[in-house]
C-alpha cells in the first residue's frame, strides 16, 4: 500500500540539454513520449505504507526493543529518515543528525568530539548507530531508556544542534513537505517534539548491520584467512597461561553474533577519570569513568575510539588493553589480573597476536551497511 504526497522530494530532476542538430525534431518527439510515460506512472513520490518488517539473522536473537507507543511503520521510517537528515532541526539550518552520524563512517563522524552549532564541541565521541534495535540503554553513560528519549538531547543541546523543540516544530510546520507527511504517519498534520523524536527513532531502528565478513562466516558463506581465524580465537578466549591458553578475552564484553552486549565498564583508561561517566547520576564511586561498551560492528570505520576519542587507531586500542590498563577503585573486575603471563597484571599480547586480532576486527566491517541506499540522505535530490 502506498500513498502519494504532493510535494516533490526524493525525485531527481535532471535538465536535458538539446543538441543543435537536424535531429531536434526526433529528440523532441522522444521527450514528449518520456514526459507522457512519466505522467502516466506518476511523478509524485509515493510514501510506502504499512508495518515495517525488520530483517535480521536468527542468531541476533529477538530481544528487540520497540516501545509499545511507537510501533515501526514504513511511513514512520520514511518520515524519520527525512528528519534524520533535516538541517532545519538545527539553530543554523546547517547541521542534521547525519552530520555527526555519517553513513560512510558507520554513522560516526571521524572526530574525537563532534562539532555542533557555533563550533561548539560535544562532550563525548559520536557513537555508531548500528543495531540499535537491540539496545535498551542509550548514550555513553546509558542514561536514556529509549531512542525516543535519546533523540531529544542532541537536537536541543547548545553544543550540538542547539535549537529548542518549539522552534523546530515551527520551522517544520512552515514547510510544504512536513505537515502532509505527519498527517500520513500520525493521522493529523500536527507537528510535535514527541512525534519528531518517534519518527527519527523509527528510522534509527532500521539501521541493521548484519552482512560483515564475520556474519558471512557465521552462515558458512566466507572462509576466513589464517590471521582472521587466529584473531577470532584470541578474541573469543580468556587467557589461561597455566594451561597454555592465550587469549584477549574480548567476548567478555563484545560477545555474540552482534559483537554487542549491553554492558557498562570502567576499562582502565585513567586512574582518576576526568569524565565521571555513570557516576554523574548514580553517585557511586564504582561507577566513575564507567561507560557503555560499544558495538564492534564496523569498528575499523569508526575511529577515533573511546568516549573521548583519545585513540586514533585500532593499534592504540589493542595496545591499551594489552599493556596500559590503569588501576582504580572503579576498574572492572574482569580487567584485573587477566594476563597471558603467569602472575601478569595485563594481557601482554605478542605483536603478531595484536595483528591477528586486528585482522579479525576488520572482518566486522559491513560494506553493504555503509552503502545501503535506504539509509542515505534523501534530501540530496530534494527541494522542500
Amino acid at each position, binding site marked *: 500500500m502506498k500513498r502519494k504526497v504532493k510535494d516533490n522530494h526524493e525525485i531527481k530532476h535532471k535538465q536535458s540539454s538539446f543538441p543543435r542538430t537536424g535531429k531536434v525534431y526526433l529528440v523532441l518527439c522522444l521527450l514528449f513520449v518520456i514526459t507522457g510515460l512519466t505522467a502516466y506512472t506518476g511523478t509524485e513520490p509515493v510514501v510506502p505504507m504499512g508495518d515495517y518488517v525488520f530483517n535480521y539473522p536468527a542468531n541476533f536473537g529477538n530481544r528487540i526493543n520497540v516501545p509499545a507507543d511507537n510501533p515501526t511503520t514504513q511511513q514512520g521510517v520514511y518520515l524519520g529518515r527525512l528528519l534524520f537528515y533535516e538541517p532545519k532541526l538545527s539553530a543554523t539550518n546547517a547541521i542534521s543528525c547525519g552530520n555527526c552520524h555519517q553513513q560512510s563512517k558507520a554513522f560516526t563522524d571521524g572526530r574525537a568530539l563532534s562539532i555542533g552549532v557555533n563550533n561548539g564541541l560535544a562532550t563525548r565521541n559520536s557513537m555508531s548507530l548500528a543495531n540499535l534495535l537491540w539496545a535498551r*540503554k542509550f548514550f555513553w553513560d*546509558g542514561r536514556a531508556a529509549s531512542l525516543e528519549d535519546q533523540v531529544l538531547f542532541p537536537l536541543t543541546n547548545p553544543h550540538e544542534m542547539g535549537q529548542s523543540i518549539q522552534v523546530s516544530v515551527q520551522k517544520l510546520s512552515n514547510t510544504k513537505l512536513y505537515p502532509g507527511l505527519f498527517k500520513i504517519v500520525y493521522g493529523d498534520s500536527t507537528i510535535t517534539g514527541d512525534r519528531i523524536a518517534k519518527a527519527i527513532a523509527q528510522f534509527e531502528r532500521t539501521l541493521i548491520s548484519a552482512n560483515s565478513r564475520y556474519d558471512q562466516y557465521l552462515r558458512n558463506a566466507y572462509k576466513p584467512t589464517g590471521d582472521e581465524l587466529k584473531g577470532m580465537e584470541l578474541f573469543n578466549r580468556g587467557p589461561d597461561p597455566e594451561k597454555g591458553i592465550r587469549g584477549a578475552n574480548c567476548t567478555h564484553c563484545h560477545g555474540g553474533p552482534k559483537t554487542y552486549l*549491553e*554492558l*557498562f*565498564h570502567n576499562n582502565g583508561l585513567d586512574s582518576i577519570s576526568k569524565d*565521571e561517566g*555513570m*557516576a*554523574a547520576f*548514580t*553517585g*557511586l*564511586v*564504582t*561507577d566513575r569513568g*564507567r561507560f557503555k561498551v560499544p558495538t564492534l560492528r564496523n569498528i575499523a570505520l569508526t575511529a577515533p575510539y573511546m568516549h573521548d576519542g583519545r585513540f586514533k587507531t585500532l593499534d592504540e586500542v589493542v595496545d591499551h588493553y594489552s599493556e596500559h590498563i590503569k588501576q582504580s*577503585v*572503579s*576498574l*572492572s*573486575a574482569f580487567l*584485573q589480573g587477566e594476563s597471558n603471563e603467569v602472575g601478569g597484571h595485563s594481557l601482554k599480547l605478542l605483536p603478531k597476536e595484536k595483528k591477528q586480532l586486528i585482522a579479525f576486527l576488520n572482518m566486522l566491517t559491513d560494506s553493504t551497511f555503509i552503502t545501503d541506499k535506504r539509509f542515505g540522505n534523501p534530501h540530496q535530490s530534494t527541494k522542500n
Partner: protein
Amino acid sequence: MKKYTIVLLLLIAGLTTNAQTATKEAVIKVTGEVTTPLTIGNAEFQQYKQTTVTRKDRDGKDHTYSGVLVSDILGKAGVTLGPELRGENLAKYLLVEASDGYQVLFALAELDKGFTDRTIILADKVDGQPLVPADGPFRIIVQDEKKPARCIKQVTAMKVMFAK
C-alpha cells in the same frame, strides 16, 4: 569579611556536592511481582539472618561467603515462595541485575528450599572480609554451580516477573 564568608560558603557547598556524588551508598531495589518493594542497603542487609556458603573461586580454592538467603529477601518482599510456589507461580523468575548492566535469572523454584537444598545467597563478605569494590558490596553466590557466571557481582536490582 563578607567576601570570605561567600568563599567559605562556596567551599562548603562544593564539598557537600562532592560528597553527594562520591559517597552515595550502593543499594539493591527489589521490585516486580512483590507485595512490598524493598530497598536494601547495608543497614537493612544486616537485619536478615546471616548464613554462609563455601564455593571454589577462580583460583580453584574454597572460599567462605557470608550473607543472606535470597529466598529470605524475597519472602520479606512478599514473593510467592513456600506453599504458594505452585500452579502459575512456577512460571515466575527472578532477574538479577548488576551495575554494569549484566543480568542473570533464576526460576523461583531454584531459590525455594521446598524444591532444592542448594543454597543461593546474596553475599557481602568473603572469608570474613567485605567484598572488594569491583565485586561488591553485594554479590550472588550459587552453591555448587560449576560455572561462576551466575555469581553476579555488584548487584543493584532484583526483579520478580512472570514469564510471558
